[in-house]
């Protein structure tokens, strides 16, 4: 399973970014192999409509779980339609910490609608 965590920089040591569509990086972690891929978000400075476009990027990378601080209404609709579950991480830890929280089952699901 591929989990996407929003981050302020590349790599699993990077701090988690609470914003979704305008997060500087998306870190995709394959929970089976532990391999991670950091993708720079081209939408950081986009004028609008970043939520659905970010969801499309997640979908292209095969992510089925998203860990972030909060998502907007349009992003929520797209996540729901794309079958991507979203969980809230609002601590000040790293991508690895957020992933550990997700695997331990301590993160609360984000309401998407």
């Amino acid at each position: 399973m591929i989990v996407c965590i929003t981050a302020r920089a590349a790599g699993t040591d990077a701090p988690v970014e609470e914003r979704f569509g305008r997060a500087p990086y998306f870190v995709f972690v394959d929970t089976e192999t532990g391999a991670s891929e950091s993708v720079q978000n081209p939408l950081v400075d986009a004028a609008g409509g970043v939520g659905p476009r970010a969801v499309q990027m997640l979908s292209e990378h095969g992510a089925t779980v998203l860990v972030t601080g909060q998502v907007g209404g349009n992003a929520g609709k797209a996540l729901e339609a794309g079958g991507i579950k979203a969980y809230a991480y609002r601590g000040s830890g790293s991508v690895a910490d957020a992933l550990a929280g997700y695997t331990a089952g301590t993160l609360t699901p984000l309401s998407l609608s």
Partner: protein
Amino acid sequence: MKIAIASGKGGTGKSTVAANLAYVLSRSRDVVLVDCDVEEPNLHLFFPAAAVDVPVTTPVPAIDPARCTFCGECGKFCRFGALSVLKDSVLVFPELCHSCGGCVLVCPQGAVREVPRTVGRVACSRPLPRLTLVSGVLNEGEVQAPAVIRAAKMLGEGHPLAVYDAAPGIACPVIETLEGSDACVLVTESTPFGLHDLSLAAEVVEKLGIPAGVVINRSDGEDAPTVAFCREHDLPVLMTIPFSREIAAVQNRGGLICRDLPGWEERFAGLVRKVSP
């Protein structure tokens, strides 16, 4: 002739000048007053009358599920995020669409067609025998102000004389309003903010090649920096309206200073002569 009223800074008195100018013009000829400040039209407050509404629609994409292969081309093309292509579905966010039509062009399957969506309306009325009011009204939460402005201006076409009341600022809605105008009246106030935004608006009308002049509103008598700016940029100061409680009181009850206060019809007639000789 088409005369646009713009300002840069909001709240300088664009609508006051537009309403009074149109009123004075309508005393001697037919005029159409077009409210192009579609996010907050207010000219109907000066000219209450029963209106006929015409809806304004813009095209937005609709996906044919029988033809779509979820290739993602439309979603990649749309820079406004109006289309999200997921594994087995395409989501359309019509309120994010800017109606560029690109998704229709890039779809290799011909699965995207356009359907109309209402984003606002144009209200037309005849408050005075020789004055037609056309007000653009953008629905709340919508982004396509230029579409409603275009429609309002189009419904004002055919009149020999039109006054366009622009939105504040210098963004797309103002450019859309200024497009095709023969003259522009820039309304400012004697504050540093008023002068700053006047300089932005002056730059815009210069780039668009529209002859412009300036009305200084709510003048406290300390207009030297504004007057100096106008001289430097060859902008004639067409009129100065003083800061006055009497004027504010007329304005606040939806009155027209050129109709309700002595001496102002002549002053606005003077403005008319300078703008449309």
